[in-house]
């Protein structure tokens, strides 16, 4: 108890031990829930856009509860930009691969030429691949929008 009190006295204004501890516990569950929303888009409301927003908001929550640097230590700007690019590439790349192996653009059934499973199953799988791409992009853009707007572009002191 005394240790907690001493720690609380060192905090800057606006930093709360309770909030920081609960955010530390909550963040993995929020991210797991975001992944669940992306993966479960086939069966329930959800999909890439919604899951990506939940994933991105977990980094924003870290930045609000701690500060911008903590959030950037967990997920650097470079990695963030990389994931955003990879997300769009997954979506567009899937479309081009479909066209290259002899189908129409974004016609996932044509992918059966690469891995021979039922074309109907490929359409289901293609939807999943595409949703993962959307989720990665939305996550990256959500986080980078907050980082850049919240700190005026310097990425040093946030809100």
């Amino acid at each position, binding site marked *: 108890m005394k240790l907690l009190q001493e720690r609380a006295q060192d905090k800057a204004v606006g930093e709360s031990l309770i909030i920081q501890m609960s955010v530390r516990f909550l963040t993995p569950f929020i991210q797991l829930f975001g992944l669940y929303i992306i993966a479960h888009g086939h069966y329930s409301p959800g999909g890439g856009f919604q899951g990506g927003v939940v994933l991105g908001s977990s980094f924003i929550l870290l930045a609000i509860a701690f500060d911008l640097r903590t959030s950037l230590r967990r997920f650097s700007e470079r990695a963030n930009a990389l994931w955003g690019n990879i997300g769009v590439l997954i979506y567009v790349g899937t479309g081009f691969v479909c066209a290259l192996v002899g189908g129409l653009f974004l016609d996932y059934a044509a992918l059966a030429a690469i891995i021979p499973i039922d074309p109907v199953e490929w359409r289901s799988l293609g*939807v999943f691949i595409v949703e993962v791409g959307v989720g990665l992009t939305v996550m990256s853009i959500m986080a980078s929008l907050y980082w850049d707007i919240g700190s005026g572009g310097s990425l040093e002191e946030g809100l």
Partner: protein
Amino acid sequence: MKALALLATLVTGAILLLGTMDFAAWGDPNSPPNRHLSPYYIENTVRETHVPNLVTAIVADYRGYDTMFETVVIYCAGLVVVSVLRRTGQ
């Protein structure tokens, strides 16, 4: 200049509102989308794609081209914000 911009906005808005007059009534079971498109998706989506959630199947499979550019629009928006606001060094 401001008056001109207001005029342009009002005229465009009026044209768009005029366009909505041709829409089918909300929830009308006899409108063309409800007679041709919806029954097709409801009857064939699970058989053709094995995705139980019709909305996901339509968004990512039947209307995949549209969703692709939605993603690209979000990506471009983020790219523009980063390139305008981000300051490095100094």
